[in-house]
């Protein structure tokens, strides 16, 4: 990565964005007919697909069901063709398990699980193309899928990454910026109350820079939530017109 400047003198990044600019966001809800909820999301070059089934009876071992809440079951996987080099990823490997666990914890905080005792909600997310911000794309896609499935949630869950280069916080990192060795902060936020569902950071950062970095990530998440909001409202309009009778 030597020789590639993450932030040029004029303030432009590798892909021409400014420091606080987000990548182009496109999303579609109701992609699959057979699932209870589904969504497809593109954040720059990162493409994620999320499918939700539920709430339904707990399959498999009965002992996993909780008497007062719904169990959320998440599975995260990356397609073998998602990275530059084809890499076969077995399902149970540590990185996928860790991501699945984080997703599960994020949504347990946001979904009102007390309304569905003894049920199970399944969330399956797959990364079709990976260009940085995998976790954020998954969270955003899964939020849309949950809204599509009609599962009650406190608020949207929006996630975004942020980095730090030469005292400037960068929002929404792409793969080159993430692996450049700098700091990466992933933040999953409920925008209206600004409560953090998950915060995750790798690589060294001096403590004094932390507030600025978190602020940048928060602002990015809020911007993202506006886009998601638009997508949901548009979908609502379309679908509700049709069900009129």
């Amino acid at each position, binding site marked *: 990565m030597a020789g590639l400047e993450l932030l040029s003198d004029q303030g432009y990044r590798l892909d021409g964005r400014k420091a606080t600019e987000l990548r182009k966001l496109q999303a579609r809800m109701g992609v699959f007919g057979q699932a209870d909820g589904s969504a497809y999301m593109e954040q720059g070059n990162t493409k994620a697909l999320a499918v939700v089934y539920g709430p339904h009876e707990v399959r498999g071992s009965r002992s996993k069901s909780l008497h007062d809440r719904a169990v959320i079951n998440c599975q995260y996987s990356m397609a073998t063709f998602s990275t530059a080099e084809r890499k076969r990823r077995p399902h*149970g490997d540590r990185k996928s398990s860790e991501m699945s666990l*984080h997703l599960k914890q994020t949504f347990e905080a946001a979904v009102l699980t007390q309304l569905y005792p003894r049920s199970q909600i399944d969330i399956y997310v797959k990364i079709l193309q990976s260009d940085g911000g995998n976790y954020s794309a998954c969270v955003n896609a899964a939020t849309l899928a949950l809204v599509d499935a009609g599962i009650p949630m406190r608020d949207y869950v929006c996630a975004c990454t942020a980095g730090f280069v030469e005292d400037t916080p960068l929002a929404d990192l792409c793969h080159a910026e993430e692996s450049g060795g700098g700091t990466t902060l992933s933040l999953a936020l409920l925008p209206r109350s600004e409560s953090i569902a998950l915060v995750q950071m790798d690589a060294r950062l001096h403590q004094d820079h932390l507030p600025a970095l978190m602020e940048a990530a928060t602002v990015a998440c809020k911007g993202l939530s506006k886009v998601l909001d638009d997508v949901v409202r548009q979908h609502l309009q379309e679908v509700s017109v049709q069900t009129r009778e």
Partner: protein
Amino acid sequence: MRETPLSNCERDFLLKSIEAKKRLDGRQTYDYRNIKITFGTDYGCCTVCLGKTRVLAQVSCELVPPKDARPTEGLMFFNLELSPMASPGFQSNRQSELLVTLNRQLERCLRNSRCIDTESLCVISGEKVWQIRVDVHVLNHDGNLMDAASVAAISALSHFKRPEVAIQGRDVTVFSPEERDPVPLSVYHMPICVSFAFFQQGTYLLVDPCEKEEQVMDGLLVIAMNKHREICFIQSSGGIMLLKDQVLRCSKIASVKVSEITELISKALENDKRVRKEGGKFGFAESVAKERITVLTREEAPLEMTDVQATADEIISKADAPPEVVPSPVIVATGTGQVGEGLQSTWGLEDDDDEEEEMSDLTEREKKKDEVMVISDSEEEEVVILNQAGQSKCS
């Protein structure tokens, strides 16, 4: 074996005491338990005791070909194991969530923060590099495995010395410790994890939760820092909602704790070095306290003793006079006595009538304070009492 769940009354008790800012073992909210770091006879072997939590870390190395993408860098491999020895709830073959979490966090804490100079591990670029392997075993689980594991791992890495190598062209000669002194690893900085447990949806937080507190907590925030106040990684887990100020506050607390712990580690390393040089005994055998009956040593709990007389007097003078009631035993059935009150029964299946009767009975009896009350619901026809005289009476 399945883990035994925490009983509801224990849970309520713990939550109530946390609200009153008290912890089970008397610590303050930001206090760590006693940390003891001991090194073994081999280089790279370290045991950390965090209260009752015990973790063992061992570092080893071998020569391997490097990764294609990075031919000049050494490799690091981390492995954490939870054995049923640590807690009956751990099962050796299953990949539990805790195992995955701890492993990934350890990896991220030590690898991504680049605490070790991997370039110095290169022997022949593109062909042979050192692979440093850190194995962490949990010996006893009493809460906060992450912190103990990170301290153990970084201490072991700082303690470890790898064999010296000589390169002649393409030939590599590895010298054994007897031939040449082994070389320590170059550790840039020491990242230490600090865990914060959150309770009641983030209203209360505790540092270094013990096992019971972990079972009651809502979520955990782990911050790894080094003494230069650089944050190496942050991870929040559990389904809690945090606010930005909470995270910032925790990072401030973490920086204080980390500097204390780093000092402890450096002192322990120094001690070990000194003992080895002086030729004294070192290793685990020395670190385990001998518990012989003739040795009357006990761990001392520090207590605030300044002005204790004055404070005690003050409290006594301010308090109300103690009530004059002499506890009179209540005999529920002949042959038994009851002093004091237990909690109200919460099974709540009694009829209202019985309750009223009992209430009226009690109020009558309260007037006769000095007498011993007998409330007998006993359905037994004959109850034998052995009185002081040794005679048996039938009632």
